[in-house]
């Protein structure tokens, strides 16, 4: 059988090798075309994968298993309905990042593109791996290119931000490594499929859960370990922010489903109150913080924390609606946050500032920009008819089944979300044009930007009206996932929450 998953993983890496041998010229167009070609090829390959993927099977498909270290580590990859969409999201977002590079990266373009391609390899690897060790390698490997992207191509305080990013994520990941080794000692394998079958004894689950949680919570990010995110976003170049928000954060959400809940269901239930409280804090607290931000990127970064709060909330409801909603929310947030960061990038490129007060009345000179930005704003505040609504709604519906009060508090976040997004839009786009803005620089979006932003806008709307293709892809897998969790009766869970 053709190793399609390995091809997906390896292709960007091969592309980056190509890039090394291309000499950087003045215009660097050839570099970009090669990178674009590779990533688009990868995107179409992943679409083909989606086409031949059978959503009615709940087990892993396209599994490849090769021995790496005899008796210890296997290179094992495979996908099911949960992971395939993340793979496609990754392959879709990466070429958009490369197109957006146009005017943002002014030096060392070759190295930048290589970093992004390696990043893609690692990200796809995370979503495909079925062995804890190689999952860990991909998961933590992603740190390095991101660290470089922020540290080299970032803004003024890039070193501090890169460092903060690294420190936070590393602390969490070390604990996860320890936990993976422990699992190997306990169960004698790191194969995820086998571990699902074997299960892990209850006595170990809580500690192991906490170790995994510490890693995923930092990456999600959950309160109170979220403070690296705004700094990282602010300093990262646009493409870096997009990758960070659209995909890196999703790796943690995916990890929660696949590993925290999948491997340690009993501990997951035990820790539900913790997760709910942290999620609620994330939703309310960061929404309020977002309201007061003066930097556009920071505002969107904080809003990402709030949106990921819905994701963690939904996953730990263990209901069909909750988990499906979480996955939908992640995909949708992947599109919307990417779109918002790209939009901020558009005005940053022109005016070299991200302060909200430096903008006003952009609609007067950039009408096209105003339209797409409006769609993204509405998507971010979860208007029905955009993809943002479906995720939030399903999550809240699932949460409501488990804990009414939690759902009620989380719903307040939806009101606050509307407040900070609309206020941002009003201050930046509406009103009359500021005198300090140079009209000549602030031209409307060009054809590349239009292509990127409108394709995102169309997807956001299409999935809002017709989410079936996504939901159908993962429905069976999740149904099966919930049934095999061996969660004791519903009743005991509800009791615990109360």
């Amino acid at each position: 059988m053709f190793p399609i998953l390995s091809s997906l993983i390896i292709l960007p890496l091969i592309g980056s090798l190509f890039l090394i041998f291309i000499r950087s010229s003045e215009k660097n167009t050839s570099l970009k075309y090669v990178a674009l070609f590779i990533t688009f090829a990868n995107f179409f390959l992943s679409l083909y994968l989606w086409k031949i993927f059978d959503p009615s099977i709940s087990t892993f498909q396209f599994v490849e298993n090769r021995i790496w270290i005899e008796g210890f580590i296997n290179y094992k990859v495979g996908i099911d309905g949960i992971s395939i969409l993340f793979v496609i999201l990754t392959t879709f977002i990466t070429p958009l990042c490369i197109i957006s590079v146009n005017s943002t990266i002014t030096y060392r373009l070759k190295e930048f593109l290589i970093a992004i391609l390696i990043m893609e390899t690692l990200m796809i690897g995370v979503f495909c791996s079925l062995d804890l060790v190689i999952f860990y390698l991909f998961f933590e490997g992603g740190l390095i290119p991101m660290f470089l992207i922020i540290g080299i191509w970032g803004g003024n305080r890039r070193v501090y931000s890169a460092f903060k990013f690294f420190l936070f994520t590393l602390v969490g990941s070390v604990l996860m490594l320890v936990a993976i080794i422990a699992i190997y000692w306990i169960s004698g394998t790191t194969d995820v499929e086998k571990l699902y079958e074997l299960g892990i004894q209850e006595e170990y689950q809580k500690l192991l859960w906490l170790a995994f949680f510490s890693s995923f919570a930092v990456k999600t990010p959950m309160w109170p370990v979220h403070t690296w995110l705004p700094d990282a976003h602010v300093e990262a170049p646009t493409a870096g922010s997009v990758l960070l928000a659209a995909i890196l954060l999703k790796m943690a959400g995916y990890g929660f489903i696949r590993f925290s809940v999948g491997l340690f269901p009993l501990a997951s239930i035990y820790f539900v109150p913790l997760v709910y409280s942290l999620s609620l804090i994330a939703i309310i607290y960061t929404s309020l913080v977002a309201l007061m931000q003066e930097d556009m990127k920071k505002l969107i970064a904080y809003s990402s924390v709030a949106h990921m709060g819905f994701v963690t909330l939904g996953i730990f409801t263990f209901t069909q609606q909750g988990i499906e909603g979480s996955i939908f929310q992640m995909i949708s947030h992947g599109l919307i946050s990417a779109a918002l960061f790209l939009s901020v990038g558009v005005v940053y490129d022109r005016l070299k500032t991200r302060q909200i007060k430096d903008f006003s009345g952009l609609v007067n000179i950039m009408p096209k920009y105003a339209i797409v930005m409006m769609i993204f704003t509405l998507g971010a505040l979860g208007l029905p008819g955009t993809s943002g609504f479906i995720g939030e709604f399903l999550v809240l519906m699932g949460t409501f089944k488990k804990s009414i009060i939690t759902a009620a508090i989380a719903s307040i976040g939806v009101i606050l979300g509307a407040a900070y997004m609309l206020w941002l839009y009003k201050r930046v786009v509406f009103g009359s044009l500021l005198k300090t803005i140079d009209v000549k620089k602030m031209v409307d979006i060009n054809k590349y930007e239009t292509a990127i932003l409108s394709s995102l806008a169309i997807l956001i709307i299409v999935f809002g009206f017709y989410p079936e293709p996504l939901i159908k892809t993962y429905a069976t897998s999740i149904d099966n996932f919930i049934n095999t969790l061996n969660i004791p009766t519903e009743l005991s869970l509800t009791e615990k929450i109360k």
Partner: protein
Amino acid sequence: MEILIVFLPLLAAIISGFFGNKLGNRFSEILTSLFVSISAIFSIYIFYNVMINDYNSNIIISSWISSGTLEVNWSIKIDPLSSVMLVVVTFISSLVHIYSIGYMHHDPHKSRFMSYLSLFTFSMLILVTSDNFLQLFFGWEGVGVCSYFLIGFWFKKQSANNAAIKAFLVNRVGDFGLALGIFLIFYYFGTINYIEVFNLIPTLVSEKINFLGFNLVAIDLICILLFIGAMGKSAQIFLHTWLPDAMEGPTPVSALIHAATMVTAGVFLVVRCSPIYELSPLGLEIVTLIGMSTAFFAATVALVQNDIKKIIAYSTCSQLGYMFFAAGVGAYNVAMFHLFTHAFFKALLFLGAGSVIHSFQNEQDITNMGGVWRKLPFTYLMMIIGTLALTGFPFLSGFYSKDAIIEFAYLEKGSLSNYAAAIGVITAIFTSIYSWRLIFLTFHGSFNNNKLNIKDLHESPLIMLIPLFLLSVGALFSGMFFKEIFIGTESSQLFWKDSIMFLEPLSKDHPPLWFLLLTPSFVIISIPFSYYLFLKKKLIIEQIVKINYPLYVFLKKKWYFDELYDFIFVKSFKNLGNFFWRKIDNLIIDRFGPDGISNIIKKFSLYAVKFQSGFIYQYAFIMLLGFSILLTFLIIK
């Protein structure tokens, strides 16, 4: 045909929204007006079919969301209730479209405006034709966002932008209640389809639920949550603050969205859910209470306002209150009847006011008007008809619907409904006074405008006057004509069938004759009374204001709701946000988190650096020291 009714406005919106610049403003105007008018004609045909042939249908267009047991479809449900709403929405909307061609004549963004109007019409149609709660919610937020676009249409005006955001956010608070209500319904029934839910609802009668420490009857809680949504959309007291501000938008918008259609969605929701509300006495009492408080509150505020549109806005608020307390006393069909007639005369009043504003070149303060009825004879006539209908002058449309509400409240047993009837009569008197005040100050007396010369004023163009005329026909005769169908004792049953549920049939008694005559006679007396008060002897009013100055300011400031909310919510949320960000995130988490760790490491490494001084004798000394300690340790052991 149903599909055409719903999707023609959407098609028009898309074409004129995206291609309006290329195809020209004139093209967009004609296209949108034409498509919505076609949709209106079809709706009237459907309504006729429903009325005569008992037509009934539920078209499933496609599936929307299916997740676990949750199955939601895009659907078009036609039953008596939705057919009435169809007619109201498309008819008023098409007239407003045509009117806007004239009103927005000077605006450069006409095609965008028309596109928003059509998009709104589409969302509203989606809302009323839904067969489940989620599609309703879609339309609910859809009309909200269109209202946001249209209020903030003049995006350069800061006040318009703020009003738009305020409208959206206050509505979101209401939507929060509605969403929780939907969740609760799903929680109990595992479905959110109207028919399935309504069939299952009787099984829930004795179910209790613990909510925030209160032990509530589940149905009551559902009703209250749904009603919070209705309060937001229909601008009921506590969630009403957005409606007067929404008058920042262009006047046709106020007529369509903030008078005739969107704001009545809340009433529609309560009537649609009559099978749920009928089983919840507490829910109905709350609806009545909020309805009558709003009716009274808004009417008092309208008495002292000077902005022509704000007066009518508060009047709308007050009339919506009437509809709610009609529903609250169980007379759902009467509520729908008032919704129906109100749509005509309130749209007429708004469009008439728009015509006045148009003539006065965007002046809205009625103290700067006056004495122009000869210059604007047609508008004047239209406004008079609208006012007569609104105040419930005998045999005009408002007379049939509003008096019916008061009568049903009177007949309904229970102290609350009697109280509501009394409030209804008092509010009717207030309504009449503020409406005539508006007419007299605007059209009679002396000309008070400093900026314009009275000779420059002229009647609005024909394209604005024709819609006014058609609406005035509705305001004059819709009450008389549709009375039997909507609220006749026998005939209304035949019309509504099971789209409205009555647990017990409405009382067939008639109130005593004196009560029947009470309201109309007050209404008639108040015309000369207001004439005397506002034109002949202005001193009396000034005296009253002087004596009751605190009360006057209290009313003028709209009972201080805005100031209160600003203090409680806006300011404190901002402060809280700042506190979380600057104090907790930056000062606590970062200081003791990453920055703290990096500081510790830095200090450690500084110590470590000191050891590496580069002098051999120091290294030798430390080696010796270490060696001797090790040796000592071994020996002791």
